[in-house]
């Protein structure tokens, strides 16, 4: 589940209007209670548990009684775990390639779809379609499309003389996942950009037209700055999504061939649900989460700084 809404909600929480709301005592609490109790049971307690578990040495074999606290041992082990660092490296490559590619292509597509076009509404829907289909249907389809010997993708690429091994090859498996991620995310990005483009400052474009500005300088000076908050939003959402999902990898490659697609989220899934090392998996999850949080905050800062300088 993506989380960027929260960031937006957080900024709004502070500016909430206080007018016209009367104290309602415990009745207000009753309204919240059903949701709150559920959130405590299914989110808050698991969250506290994951933090506690990260400081324990616990696996399925040792049973509930076998929980032993081992201080920061898990974190020391993570620092020395080549499997962890390999997974981090892969995840970085995956994020750094797929996220900007998706955003840039989504921007181009969004600008194109903002023009008058024949059948524009249908076009928008088509590009959005991959985003709403379940990952298993998509994964199975692409797995067969990218069959190295007889898949449709390699039939097309034959004309260019390239025949990647895709999911059968340790070099091509990650690029294959990136192709799928871009295909799945571009339409979503373009729609987000579309709604932002509709708010673009019209008078500025008219003024620029009078000054005889080129299309490129209009884009650089007017469009791009006005889209900056949207771009940040998309970067944050996509970075979180790309670093947390393990479903597709569990389905198609199981982290392979070898460990060629063992990204950090899949590594955690493997540690927790295949080797049942709950303590270590919790520690990996926690470290990853903090890492992603720092990464998104840095993205935020960097972009914000640039926006102020312009």
């Amino acid at each position, binding site marked *: 589940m993506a989380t960027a809404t929260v960031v937006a909600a957080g900024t709004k929480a502070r500016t909430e209007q206080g007018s016209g709301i009367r104290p309602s005592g415990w009745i207000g609490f009753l309204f*919240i209670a059903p949701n709150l109790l559920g959130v405590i049971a299914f989110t808050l*307690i698991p969250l506290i548990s994951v933090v506690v578990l990260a400081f324990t040495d616990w696996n399925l074999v040792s049973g509930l009684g076998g929980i032993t606290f081992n201080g920061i041992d898990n974190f020391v082990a993570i620092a020395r775990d080549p499997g962890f660092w390999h997974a981090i490296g892969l995840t970085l490559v995956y994020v750094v390639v797929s996220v900007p590619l998706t955003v840039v292509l989504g921007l181009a597509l969004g600008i194109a779809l903002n023009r008058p076009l024949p059948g524009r509404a249908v076009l928008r829907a088509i590009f959005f379609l991959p985003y709403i289909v379940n990952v298993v249907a998509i994964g199975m389809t692409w797995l067969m499309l990218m069959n190295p010997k007889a898949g449709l993708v390699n039939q097309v690429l034959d004309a260019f003389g390239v025949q990647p091994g895709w999911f059968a090859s340790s070099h091509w498996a990650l690029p294959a996942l990136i192709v799928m991620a871009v295909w799945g995310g571009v339409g979503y990005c373009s729609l987000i950009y579309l709604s932002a483009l509709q708010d673009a400052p019209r008078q500025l474009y008219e003024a620029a037209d009078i000054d005889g500005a080129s299309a490129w300088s209009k884009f650089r000076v007017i469009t791009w700055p006005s889209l900056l908050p949207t771009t940040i939003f998309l970067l944050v959402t996509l970075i979180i999504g790309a670093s947390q999902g393990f479903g597709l990898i569990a389905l198609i490659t199981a982290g392979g061939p070898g460990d060629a697609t063992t990204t950090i989220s899949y590594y955690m899934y493997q540690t927790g649900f295949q080797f049942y090392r709950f303590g270590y998996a919790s520690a990996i999850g926690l470290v990853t989460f903090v890492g992603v949080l720092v990464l998104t905050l840095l993205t935020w800062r960097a972009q914000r700084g640039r926006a102020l300088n312009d």
Partner: protein
Amino acid sequence: MTKKYSKWIWGVPLWILAIAFLAPFAWMISTALKPDVDAYKIPMQWIPSPFQWDNFSTVLSGATSVLPAFGRSVFVALLRVAGELITATMAGYAFARMSFKGRDKLFLLYLATAIIPAQLLLVPRFIYFQKLGLYDTLWALILPGMFTVLGTFLMRQFFVSQPAEFAEAARMDGANEWRVFTRIYLPLATPVMSALGILAFVWSWNDYETPLVLISNPDRYTLPLSLTNFVDEQGQIAPGLTMAASVISIVPVLIVFVVLQRRFIAAMTHTGIK
């Protein structure tokens, strides 16, 4: 004159791109309607010949039927949507329009937990649900989905933007808090609630990671998991059956998408939640 053609100068390449984008879906449908021997034919045969419905009848009947899984997915989705709409609407309303002790602190707590990725919580949920006897039951999928922080946010953001005067007037007339909520603010919230309902439905329908971890008995598979039934132990996929089942798994979301397209896109793009 150029203006008239410029529509097509952009339109033609975009339509070509769109068709390329649709190719995986076309391949899916085409493969579902042909015998497996033709699935990897070179060159690709887009229009199946012979054209056959056998794959669909296999995945819709007998021991290989995905219909039970389809039913379970419907059951899970309905309960999740209903539960989330009820609890999130009430909580969102109270956070926005009522004041009580500790409200803002509580809301901050909600903010903090909302940025936690669901994947991180799977390990403790796996353990708890085993202790509670919920592991490997549909309730492991339903219950956490009924009480969401993100749904509460969405509803709160809406109610915060509504004027307080309505409530004041109703209270003057002696309406109690529950009446103010159900008679005045709730009817205003139907567009947002339908957006949240769409989102909750799509999350639930497409969820693969949660059942992958929390469901192990194939008799309790939801639809996305059941699509993997057509892969044998060696990892060989039965193309026709898998694609036929995949088409079936897409249809409900597609129907919602086509019927409620505008609202659907608004819901997805305004929240950034998949």
